[in-house]
């Protein structure tokens, strides 16, 4: 794995609220902001943090399924609506299911590395609530192999894929320990989200989160091995930031104290038509993260802040193992021992993660980068964690499909 040929910085991050059920102001029958609103809000949120929009050279937008959720294609062209100076600039939309946001980041990074641009606006967006969850499940199933899997698949296609993983883990490692770790993961996610006013679960008022997380799965109406608390919710939202060269960062006037430097990344993609080689492992996540470690010259022991793609509680736990934070089969212990809590030694998903913050699918990868940026630059507000001096690195994992398209990035403060 080659090293980055020059410094690349991330700055001026912005997340919209993750909107959907759970937010007090959400009502399924009331009008809501659409795709255009979220793209504009996130883009403008970035522009307010830089000195002039004209310095943006290009744009990348990550999105999964606007063509079905919103009947809208050509999203790159919607980015131009953010600011008049964007007219006729190069913009591109990228897609890798729920890893689209991650691809938005690495596509921007490569453009900067190629010297073709100094400042990229990277956005990730998804607006899913126009479609009821049962039909949204059809749309999200597009992250699997339609011809090979959909007909035989479950009504809730993706939850069932991770339910199968949970079932395999129960069988191999014992039900109680895994189930309890999943419930603790849920509890941890909600406790973190309650500190984040933009999180979908910010208003969550369940008294006993662990008990809720322990709700026995009901295969008659949902999945065999997971309950609804094990799942991220249906979300609307967008995130954005700039990706810049040294010169680009100077041009937009963002001080290094408010920027992070990318020091390694990995993109790994597995064959969509094939089932996971092992249901109890996130193999592609492992490949992607280890590419990033290699590029950065680091390992799991160096990471002080972690953002994993916990679309399902079991996914988050298995990613801890895939990324080397626990041995195979020991991920649940990290969670049960409280090590991944915001005040633990490996603060994980400190703003709520996908379970707590929300999961606007194609935008989540960018959201994760924004949150790592805020943590490493001390701008995370009530969600701020202590970043240890001897482990000053932040790792994020953005995953599309059932461990199919994975982007991992490692950052450190640019100051």
């Amino acid at each position, binding site marked *: 794995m080659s090293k980055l040929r020059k410094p690349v910085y991330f700055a001026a991050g912005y997340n919209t609220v993750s909107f959907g059920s759970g937010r007090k102001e959400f009502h399924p029958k009331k009008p809501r902001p659409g795709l255009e609103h979220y793209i504009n809000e996130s883009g403008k949120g970035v522009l307010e943090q830089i000195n002039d929009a004209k310095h943006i050279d290009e744009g990348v937008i990550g999105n999964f399924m606007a063509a079905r959720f919103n009947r809208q294609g050509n999203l790159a062209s919607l980015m131009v609506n953010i600011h008049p100076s964007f007219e006729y600039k190069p913009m591109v939309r990228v897609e890798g299911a729920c890893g689209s946001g991650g691809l938005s980041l690495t596509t921007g990074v490569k453009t900067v590395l190629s010297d073709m641009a100094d400042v990229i606006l990277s956005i990730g967006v998804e607006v899913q609530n126009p479609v009821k969850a*049962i039909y949204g499940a059809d749309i999200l199933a597009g992250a699997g192999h339609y011809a090979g899997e*959909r007909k035989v698949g479950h*009504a809730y296609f993706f939850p069932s894929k991770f339910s199968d993983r949970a079932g395999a883990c129960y069988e191999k490692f014992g039900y109680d320990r895994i189930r309890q770790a999943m419930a603790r993961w849920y509890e941890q996610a909600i406790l973190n989200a309650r500190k984040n006013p933009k999180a979908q679960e910010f208003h969550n008022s369940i008294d006993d989160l662990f008990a809720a997380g322990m709700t026995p799965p009901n295969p008659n*109406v*949902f999945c065999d091995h997971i309950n609804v608390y094990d799942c991220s919710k249906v979300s609307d939202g967008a995130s954005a930031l700039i990706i810049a060269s040294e010169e680009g960062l100077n041009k937009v006037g963002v001080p290094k104290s408010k920027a992070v430097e990318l020091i390694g990344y990995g993109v790994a993609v597995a064959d969509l038509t094939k089932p996971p080689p092992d249901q109890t492992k996130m193999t592609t996540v492992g490949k992607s993260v280890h590419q990033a470690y290699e590029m950065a010259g680091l390992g799991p022991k160096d990471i002080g802040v972690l953002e994993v793609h916990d679309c399902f509680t079991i996914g988050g736990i298995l990613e801890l193992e895939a990324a080397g934070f626990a041995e195979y089969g020991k991920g649940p212990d990290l969670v049960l021992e409280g090590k991944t809590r915001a005040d633990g030694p490996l603060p994980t998903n400190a703003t709520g993660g996908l379970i707590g913050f929300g999961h606007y699918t194609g935008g989540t990868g960018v959201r994760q980068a924004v949150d790592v940026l805020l943590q490493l630059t001390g701008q995370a507000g009530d969600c701020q964690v202590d970043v240890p001096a001897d482990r000053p690195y932040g790792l994020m994992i953005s995953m599309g499909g059932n461990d199919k398209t994975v982007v991992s990035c490692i950052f450190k403060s640019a100051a």
Partner: protein
Amino acid sequence: MTLDERLENVAVIGAAGKMGSGIVLLLAQEMAKLKLKNPDKGYHLYAVDISEKDLDGLTGYLQAQATKAAEKGCVMLRELYKDRDNLVENYDIIAQFTSDVLSVIRPTTELALTKNACMVFEAIVEDKDVKIKILKTIDSLCSKDTYYFTNTSSIPIHILDEGVGLDGRIIGYHFYNPPAVQKLAELIPAKTTKKNVIDLSHEIAKRLRKKIIPSNDVAGFVGNGHFMRDILHATGEVERLSDTFSQVEAIYALNKVSQDFLIRPMGIFQLIDYVGVEVCQLIMKVMSTHIPGVTLESDLVNKMVDKNVIGGQYADGSQKDGFLKYEKNRPTGVYDIEKGAYVAFDPDGWTKKIDEKLGAMPDGWAPWRKLLMDPKKDDKLKAYFGHLKNVNTLGAQLAKAYFKQSKAIGEGLVNDGVAHNAEDVNGVLTNGFYHLYGPINNYLD
């Protein structure tokens, strides 16, 4: 004849009404599933109603409700349609099932079409003579093996059996409103009801995923036996409070006491409006007629019916005004019978004063909705009523009296042989009325 065979030909009478349409929906779904398993057989549900116009609305209602049900049951439906290669996405399957459900239903105003029905579900007006007349006509058309399921909530089944001459081929099958949602069905066999009918009724309940609670054949049965007497306690309290409150204020106060202080899903006057003020009057009359020595009558209810302010629901399910005025199905005012107009709630004015007179909620209080899904609700209810017992605000006093009366009514139903036991009374109130606790308990002891 097995249940599956009987489900080949079914009639629902009063199909466009709020109970009938729900029963049609429940049965049609099961018939559509049978059709999938037995594609060569014909399945017909005759949805009979006297109103052509209401039947027009029925199809739209069924389409929407069948779609909703299919969305909810999609996990199971994917299994049912697993051999249909053209149905891949949930959307395809839900649309197909909805179409299959609608295709078994034959909306009609012609009673004659029921001639092949093996099961007849009756959900027409709560009038003994009308029921007997219609059932007699159907019985003259149908085979003598046809079974009858009446949705009456008050008329004794033996009266209908004797009146029509069904010789025990009838049973009370009292669905709760709305039938598609409510889990409870009260099952009321007359002494003459054939064992086959009773057995089949249990089988139907299992198929429709309903919880059966049996009641003896005494007018009003368990559900209305409690509800009507609960109403009389509330309207009586309104009169007794006339020194303290105006009638409008007292109705507001009792509604609040019965909902908030007793942690019920609705206040008593909202529930009367939901069921229909006139329906409640009718049920009281039926019960007074058929229970020796019992007279159930409320001046307040009579006055409302005289004014033709009778609650009930619009075709779209939204709440009509009755004792209370509604906006978006939420109470916003109280009807002033003298003036013939509504007095709007005024959170900074008169309603606030009443709230203050009633006093604060005792410690441990939580709204019904919050406790509904709470796994520790039993402990929390026990703790709350423990506090209520020791509070002496006006609201607490009214609540305690209400609570004790509700318990006495429940015990009376057992003592009078209406309910088989206390558990059944509590089961009807918790499953049919969505109370969090049954009236026969020791919370205040």
